[in-house]
């Protein structure tokens, strides 16, 4: 078999992405939570809106909103926190909308992740990086 230069490049890129993944903690604590919630099911990306600031004004209280029409349950994870589990919102059959907002504490710059369990048993996820900065020098 011949490996082309392009394939080599792609492999190298894949390796470097894996090596550079900043969320090794995510693989431990967050992955357990995700596995418990989804049972290891595949996750789509359509139908769930996660709204969070790009840069937190105050890392101690970051407003986050999740919305997934038709969801029965939405889990919220702060993947870079020592304890990533932030919230699980359950929606009963009489819920007027499948939207919830809360405030979470973020220990550092990290990805906030939401996973929605839909009525048909499928799962979708959304992720956003929220930067926690010391700030100070706006011009």
């Amino acid at each position, binding site marked *: 078999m011949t490996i082309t230069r392009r394939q080599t490049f792609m492999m190298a890129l894949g390796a470097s992405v894996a090596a550079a993944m900043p969320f090794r903690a995510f693989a431990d604590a967050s992955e357990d939570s995700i596995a418990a919630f989804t049972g290891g099911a595949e996750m789509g990306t359509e139908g769930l809106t996660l709204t969070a600031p*790009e840069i937190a004004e105050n890392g101690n209280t970051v407003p986050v909103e999740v919305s997934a029409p038709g969801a029965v349950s939405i889990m919220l994870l702060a993947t870079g926190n020592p304890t990533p589990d932030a919230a699980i919102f359950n929606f009963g059959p009489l819920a007027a909308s499948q939207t919830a907002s809360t405030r979470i504490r973020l220990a550092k710059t990290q990805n906030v992740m939401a996973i929605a369990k839909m009525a048909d048993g499928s799962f979708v996820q959304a992720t956003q990086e929220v930067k926690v900065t010391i700030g100070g020098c706006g011009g």
Partner: protein
Amino acid sequence: MISRRDFLQASVAASAIIGASGFGRWGRLAAQQALTQDQLLQFDTYGNVSLIHVTDIHAQLKPIYFREPSVNLGVGPNKGEVPHITGADFRKLYGIDDGSASHYALSSGDFSALAQGYGKMGGLDRVATVINAIRADRPDAILLDGGDTWHGSMTCYETQGQDMVNVMNLLKPDAMTFHWEFTLGSDRVREIVQDLPFAAMGQNIFDAEWDEPSEDFKPYEFFERGGVKVAVIGQAFPYMPIANPGWMFPEYSFGIRDAHMQDMVNEVRGMGAELVVCLSHNGFDVDKKMAANVTGIDVILSGHTHDALPEPVLVGETIIVASGSNGKFVSRVDLDVRDGRMMGFRHKLIPIFSDVITPDAEVAKAIDAERAPFKDRLEEVIGRTDDTSLLYRRGNFNGTWDDLICNALLDQRDAQIALSPGVRWGPSILPGSDITREDIWNVTSMTYGKAYRSEMTGETLKLIMEDVADNLFNPDPYYQQGGDMVRVGGIGYKIDITKPIGERISDLTLLATGEAIDAATPYVVAGWASVNEDTEGPQIWDVVEDYIASQGTVSVPDNTNVVVVE
């Protein structure tokens, strides 16, 4: 059939021709000592709506010298794109002749020499003349102020912004958005805003407790002009509580909130808006990304990053106009709006050459009245620049004004290391000139200017520098705050702007000993403009004044202590 997109691009090309020929001509005419007000104002009125944009005046009532940056690096998708093109490259891009008036006004290079010939720029009395001339052509032109107006001078500080409010009211703006205004404190901002005879706007100004739009500011305002329903949506600086002290305005939350911006665009379109304008204090790269994310905005009038561009930048079907800072420019944008949409535009960035444009007498008188109680303090000469030192601020990593401020901190506060914020406001001082107290306040005045002195480990120092570098060089503009790299005194470093946070800064060296900065060792650090509420120390303008007075004549050589890798 010509689609809307084709028409816009055709219009862009037309604007480029107007811009280039106009600029080139001014250059030659100026060389012949024939730059005239009529030529600066020449504009064939077009379409049915005119917008006038001023932004980031930073309380500069009087004409000033202001050197544009020679270093303004873009990252990610913005590498090598305007406004991240400077000096000779900028002139080549826009067809500007070396030594021309537009070279002097818009780009760096030969600044001190050209300043001698072309003189100071700006002055709100000259700005008033230009606005009045545009209104003579188009009486119902909409004047929009992009903010950073009530900050940046001694008179503004001492009157808590009232001098600027009084003078700007004479110019009769139609709407305004905000940034540094909030550093007056939220009580004072509300006090002024309640009496403003025009709209105070920001769709992204939210109530911090409820995370809902604040009732103190309007998201948008409608104007009926030339038979056209125009909606102007405000966008305040998104990162106010992070870049500036949040404790001064704790009731408010900001952020980019582009989903809410889309809701506002849809709302005004639903109410019949035929033209949607965003008056923005996002900064240029953030505006470019927002223009791509939000559909339905025709024009973004961009502020915050102090860029002066002779042509609009087109993103999708949105034109983005950047009008410079410190009163140097006024943008005029004429628009042809028909059948409920923007069909074309004509644009001119009008440079305010203060020796060419006649001051408006009423506004000139009002400015002098505002300054009168402070005249003696303002005009006192503290020292001089030597014959080779131009004091300027703009640049990603350093400016000679900031080098001087860092030297003042090291000397007057007996520190090993000095830190000075990478702000972009503050006029320049020519070589061989007096430095007055006003000049010092113009580059230091703020409501949180106390010069602290504390100990920091090398690790903390690096953490701060990495954090600020990421606010400037994060490849995603939504994670940038505008401003420049924190200025340092007493140390040197290397920065690789292509790396991620934590890996950009290296080779930190204490210049006094030539030794590497040690992570665990505490160093004595002096700085100013801390966002922490309990900061103690003398005001920075007093520190700088004492230092300049002690020096008599100041000399600030080129700074070679920062090595940049792109």
